[in-house]
């Protein structure tokens, strides 16, 4: 991220600094009727969410059924042999929880790179177009935008590395958190780490790639980034469809992971629970699937909410258009100042 446009960015997100509920300017271009369809690429977004969630589910439900050559086969090293249980021969998912978790991580990693780069492009478009919405037909601005875009694109690789690094740090953080919440302390470290990595991939990677990593530095850029992270992930107040598409799935993944820990304790003699095999706890199956499931639900909810809001907005606009074409601009001006319901 270059210093050049940092102040602008600060301007856009400054309402996050005072934690009051009246944003004066937003990144959301909800006042610009002409542009709204391009800001909210409904068709693309829907299809991408559909493909992404489907592939996520595929990678967590089907990929883990095949052996992973780089892993030792845990089942043979323990006293219990899974092959003895006819129920399990068919259920390759639960045969070796670690393998399953690693497969899910691999699948998620690939999918998240694709998803995050799409989100990042969307986010850039939003910024550019919001700019364009305010000052249109000014050739100078358009040129400046193109320049900006170029710098952004050239910063892609740096942003990618930042995202990877944040994900790595996050994975250790989440693994430590899992241990605090009760994951085994002296054993199953690879299992716990796999869960941490998965949750980190689902929650940290995309926002880190889009927004930059939060840091404790005192310069303006870090400050703004930090506050954006806080606004999104602590106060849970996304203000645009793109932010929603980042926040909802992440929160969903965390909640799903948390909820996934609950059935782990039940004792229905199910293979995915902790009780069937000595040493081979089913850890971290329920939490991993909870995280992926939560992500998918969150992603779909973000799509749903944004779509409904968009439709409502369009409906309102068309109403206003039909009532008075001239008055449209004024009312929009008012509307953009109205606090957005969250």
């Amino acid at each position, binding site marked *: 991220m270059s210093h050049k446009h940092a102040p602008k960015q600060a301007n856009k997100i400054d309402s996050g600094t005072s934690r009051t509920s009246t944003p004066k300017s937003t990144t959301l271009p909800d006042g610009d009727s002409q542009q709204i369809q391009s800001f909210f690429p409904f068709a693309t977004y829907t299809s991408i969410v559909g493909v992404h969630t489907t592939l996520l589910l595929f990678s967590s439900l089907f990929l883990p059924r095949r052996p992973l050559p780089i892993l030792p086969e845990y089942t043979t090293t323990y006293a219990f042999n899974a092959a003895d249980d006819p129920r399990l021969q068919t259920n390759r998912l639960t045969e070796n929880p670690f393998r399953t978790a690693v497969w899910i991580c691999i699948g998620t990693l690939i999918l998240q790179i694709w998803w995050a780069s799409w989100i990042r492009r969307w986010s850039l478009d939003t910024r550019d177009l919001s700019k364009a919405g305010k000052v249109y037909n000014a050739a100078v601005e358009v040129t400046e935008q193109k320049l900006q875009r170029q710098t952004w694109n050239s910063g892609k690789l740096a942003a990618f590395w930042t995202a990877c690094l944040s994900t790595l740090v996050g994975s250790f953080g989440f693994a430590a958190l899992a241990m*605090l*919440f*009760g994951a085994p302390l002296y054993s199953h470290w690879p299992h716990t780490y796999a869960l941490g990595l998965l949750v980190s991939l689902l929650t940290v990677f995309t926002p880190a790639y889009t927004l930059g990593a939060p840091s404790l530095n005192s310069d303006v850029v870090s400050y703004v980034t930090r506050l954006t992270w806080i606004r999104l992930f*602590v106060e849970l107040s996304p203000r645009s469809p793109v932010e929603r598409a980042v926040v909802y799935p992440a929160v969903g993944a965390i909640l799903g992971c948390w909820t996934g820990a609950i059935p782990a*304790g*039940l004792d229905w003699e199910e293979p995915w629970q902790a009780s069937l095999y*000595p040493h081979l706890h089913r850890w971290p199956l329920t939490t991993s699937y909870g995280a992926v499931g939560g992500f998918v639900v969150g992603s779909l909810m973000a799509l749903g909410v944004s779509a409904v809001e968009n439709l409502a907005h369009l409906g309102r606009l068309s109403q206003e258009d039909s009532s008075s074409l001239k008055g449209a601009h004024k009312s929009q001006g008012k509307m953009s100042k109205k606090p957005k319901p969250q």
Partner: protein
Amino acid sequence: MLSKGFPLLFWVFLVHLAGIYLYTRGFLLTRLALPDISTCTPESCPFPPSYNKAVILIIDSLRFDFISPNPPHPPSLYHHHVLSLPAELTRLEPEHSLLLNSFPDPPTTTLQRIKALTTGSLPTFVDMGSNFGGSSILEDTIIGQLLARGKNLAFMGDDTWMTVFPDSFNQSWPFDSFHVEDLHTVDLGVIKHLFPLLHENAQNRSWDLIVGHFLGVDHVGHRMGPESPVMKTKLLQMDNVLREVVDAMDDDTLLILLGDHGMDSKGDHGGDGVLETSAGLWFYGKGRPLVNPKVTIPDQYKTYRTYPGSTVPHRHVQQIDLLPSLSLLMGLPIPFNNLGSIIPELFWLEDTGETFKKALGANALQIRQYLDTYRASSAGQELDDAWDRLQNMWNVAQGSNGLDDDLKWSGLDLFTRLALSACRAIWAQFNMTLIILGLILLAVGTIAAWSLYSKLGSLRDDWDTWGQAVTRECLQWSGIGSTVGLIAYLPTAHLKVAGILDCVIFGAFFASSVALIHATRSSLVQTVTQSIRFWSVPIPLILHTIAFMSNSFILWEDRLTTFLLLSSIVPFVLTGITAPTSRLRYRILGFSALFAVSLRLIGISTVCREEQQPYCEVTFFASSAITAPPALILAVSIPFAVGLPFIVNRFLRISQSDKGIAAILLPWILPSLLLQASVAWILEWVDVVGFLGPSWTPILRAVRTSLGWLSLGGVILIATSLWYHVTLCIEVKTREQGEKREVTVIGFANLFGSSFLMFWLISFVLVYIATQLTGQVILCLGAITLLSFLEVVDSVRDVRGMNLAFASATPSQILEPEAMQGTLSTLGVTFAEITPLALLGVHLYYGTGHQATIPSLQWKAAFVFTGKMYKPFAIPPLLLNTFGAFILPALAVPLLALWNTAPLPHPTASHAARRLGVKAGLGIMVYYGWLLIGSAVSSAWLRRHLMVWKVFAPRFMLAASSLLAVDLAVLLAVGVGMGRVEKALERLLGAMPSMNSKAKMQ
């Protein structure tokens, strides 16, 4: 002291008591003991006595594998193949010896087993509590049958027998049974008095039956566990005794050796684990053949069971099967209430099995008579469900007479087994009316407490007058309610579902609860509407309560608690991240991290339930079979004991309140008291491990007793009286500067909290004394957790106060401490702040080596102040040990209102602090109230569940007793702790009226 909210809290406590009383009366089972006595008829005494004399030797807790020829693999060095005589003689003289694995019905406690062995019946769960008191038997017993025939009985050993049969024995040498630390007195006593009787010559023999009850193995189990060299010594001693007995006995004597129950892997018993319900049983007779190994007994009469870890299935009988077999062998009728079946090997001596058939006939007839009598009694309808099947089986057996002989006898055998299982089922008979009344009372009472809790948040200075008015109203309504209850009892009296006392209690408390809900309804409605907001829903409480519906969650509640506790801190952390100043941010995040880490450390310590195996590793003790603390704990025990007061001091220094009494208690008195308590337990470990040899035991014991009394005396005489007189953590400096007099007061900002903390620390030491070494370290971690949580709560309130101030019209009020104080008191105590403290209680309970099972009681704690089982000295530390974990957080709960609260402006701040303290106390009572409701509903709902006596009922008992402990602790904290601090403040501030304005406060 007793005014201001105390009566309201006391009333909530009474409602809990009443609800628990009604529910337990309906839920805990009773059995009708029939007074009839069996008589001898040709059918009931089919043959003359095979043995005229019998010696019954009971080795308490003799698990089957101790005498088994095929113990688990690999065999233990300490208790397998040590007591080898039974297996040896069974191999050498198979026709004289019979070795069995017997199943004692739970509860596996000595009193119940003695009753079962002599009556042949199934003592119910309710008898459990009378293990301490004992109670004599009014039913037909083999002892009574022998007495009726003029036989002479001799007894020596465990004095529990004396409470059951106070004057049945002609000669008796009872010994104290609960003196667990004494491994030898009882056994040596039995040996001393047994052999003279055995050596008496046949002409002037003074006995026909000897009962000898050894306790050493049980005590070694409780104290050191089965994997101890002492166990080997003990079992060798028993083996030698047996060899001598076998040598001394004549041909006309039957020797029976049995364990009254087994022991679990740690040496405890009381539950229904496989190890606890595997007891050894061995018959030996020298003269005529006892069994005939050459005949083949049909398989349907015999059951086999494989002992865990062993590879060979072994012959398995019910423990009560001993009674009919022994009665018939001695020529007695089978006692009337017996449900056991004869052991076929003892009677199937000829190929045709004639004797066996006669015996089985007598056995079945006796059970038939018993069932008929029971059916005709007032409790007869209990048999409704099983009656048809019993009748059918009996008719089939009778009808097939002459047709198919085999069918008849196996039919009779099945009939006796069916009777046993039917009776097992009916003595799980519940009084649903009382259960439902109890549940209603608990629910209404908890809702009333909850609505009172919300009402206290909305009241202001006038809350005390309001409280008094409501108390009066409650009293009036309880009067009306009890009258209505009495009237309602009269027409329903003939139904015999609820007694007059039950009706009156229910009426009184139901009416007053409803009156209270009515008085506070506006707040209740408000709370319910508020809780639609996501964050104000008490998610941990809801999850914790409904978790009791599943046995898995009860089994794994220790893990669940860690999870919920960590989750409950999340809202605080989120506030911390958004805190407006970096100081508050670091404080909140730092203390939250400390809180989380110490919680997780507490969560490591566990004794593991039996059902958690093999996914649980015992960390409270060095291993699952050694009841000594792990090496790491031994190493850190003393540093923790000495260091804790300094850590507390560090916390107090944040608010500069390490002054006044804190300056005396923390650096000097508390470390020495905690040190004494730790050293006493280290000496206990030295004694158990046996570093110094047995000659040191009395010396160590004396030192331990005196250390116990010294620390107790220190707590009561020095710490408590000091706190009572000095009370406040404050330092007042006066400096004369010519005419001007400058008064500096240090420690004002946290005066309430720090002074109350001293009270809490004194209680902490009391619990600490009664806690084993690992538990002591866990308690220290608990204290750190508590203090860091208080700091988190305080900082989060600062954040909220600042946010409120920013949002208000006059943000500059943030600079005026007194105005801020006002804002904080309006913020009040939230349920989200109470939840972690309540959960901390449960967490500490599991961390200090307890489980929701009866065998996890730490009997060792009873011997802190006394070497003998002297109840007034033994019971209080045992209670402190068991419930200390619940008591400490409950005692600390007013700190949520008091921590970092300055007593200014004078009367207002005091009033607000007291109101919020009472509110916090009510909050924790409500939390535990819901837990009790959850476990009571699940126990009642799943009362026919396979696991009810193993999982649900013990958890209910824990929930009930912990709720009462929490109630009492809150009453103590509000009544004594807060009362005293307020009085001292009143004295200080009342004496210096000018101070309010002039003094420089810090």
